[in-house]
């Protein structure tokens, strides 16, 4: 027995033993009768036997494919964005094509332009008239501060 175990150990360290051989070694080292000169290897084999007793204790939690869910959201966001941009583009470009009140007759056009400019200049003059009052401030400033 001991001789056989020694041979198995030799093969074991060379990496030439089979799984069955290694199971024999594990059984031998877990038995109560180990040759004193081989006793030093006992912890190694006991460790492997012990390690296999560890189990996954946590409750498994399978989330519904998070990647898939997020990619749907991404696709939805892209479509929404695209629709938004195209809506904005079409709504602005149609106003550009709308009738802007052009005149076919140049005389009519001249009169209309003239009226429009007159209206603008009238408003501007009104603004300037009010600004003239500022000159009084300027004068009083000069009398006070020399």
């Amino acid at each position, binding site marked *: 027995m001991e001789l056989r175990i020694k041979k198995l150990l030799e093969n*074991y*360290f*060379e*990496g*030439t033993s089979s*799984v069955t051989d*290694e*199971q024999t070694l594990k059984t031998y080292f877990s038995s109560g009768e*180990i040759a004193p000169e081989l*006793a*030093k*290897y*006992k*912890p*190694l084999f*006991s*460790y*492997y036997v*012990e*390690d*296999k007793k*560890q*189990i*996954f*204790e*946590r409750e*498994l*939690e*399978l*989330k519904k*494919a*998070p*990647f*898939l869910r997020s990619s749907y959201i991404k696709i939805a966001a892209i479509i929404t964005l695209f629709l938004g941009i195209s809506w904005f583009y079409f709504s602005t470009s149609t106003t550009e094509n709308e009738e802007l009140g052009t005149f076919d007759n140049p005389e009519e056009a001249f009169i209309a332009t003239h009226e429009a400019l007159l209206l603008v200049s009238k408003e501007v003059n009104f603004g300037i008239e009010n600004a003239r009052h500022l000159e009084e401030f300027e004068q009083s400033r000069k009398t006070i501060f020399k």
Partner: protein
Amino acid sequence: MNQKEFMQVVAPFQNKLFRLAKRLLVSKEEAEDATQEIMVKLWNKNKNLGAYTNVEAFAMTMTKNYCLDQLKSKRVVNSGSLTIDYQDQSINLENQIEDQNTLKWVEQCIEELTIAQRTIIQLREVEELEFSEIAKIVEMNETAVRVALSRARKTLKNKIEQIQNHGIKN
């Protein structure tokens, strides 16, 4: 495949995934997180899972790769545990007492091996897989696996002999 069927497929090997993750990541908490993560990944592959003839080997490879990525992202994960106080470990050879302490230093010796060696040790010594199966999981050829395993076993042998002879490292 519904959730119940999926659970039945993964049940036989989920502990193996966990133990492999623990061997590589050391911390139990991190190993549990990794196992959970791999299960979710597998569940998401659900529809294609039938295409794999060996779901277990596939899951083991995924676990190995996942753990390697985890280790890469924080390289100095367990540098603290590498300083082992061997003097504390008084080994009672006369009585053949096998306490938690003894198992602890075997674990620490294994932790000092390379990542590839640890993976192979776990798959062979604990899970008792054949070389052909291990070769697939670690993506190496069988000869390379055999050589790495032999080297790892010899390293452990030397460490154990040193500790048992002197009670001190080196």
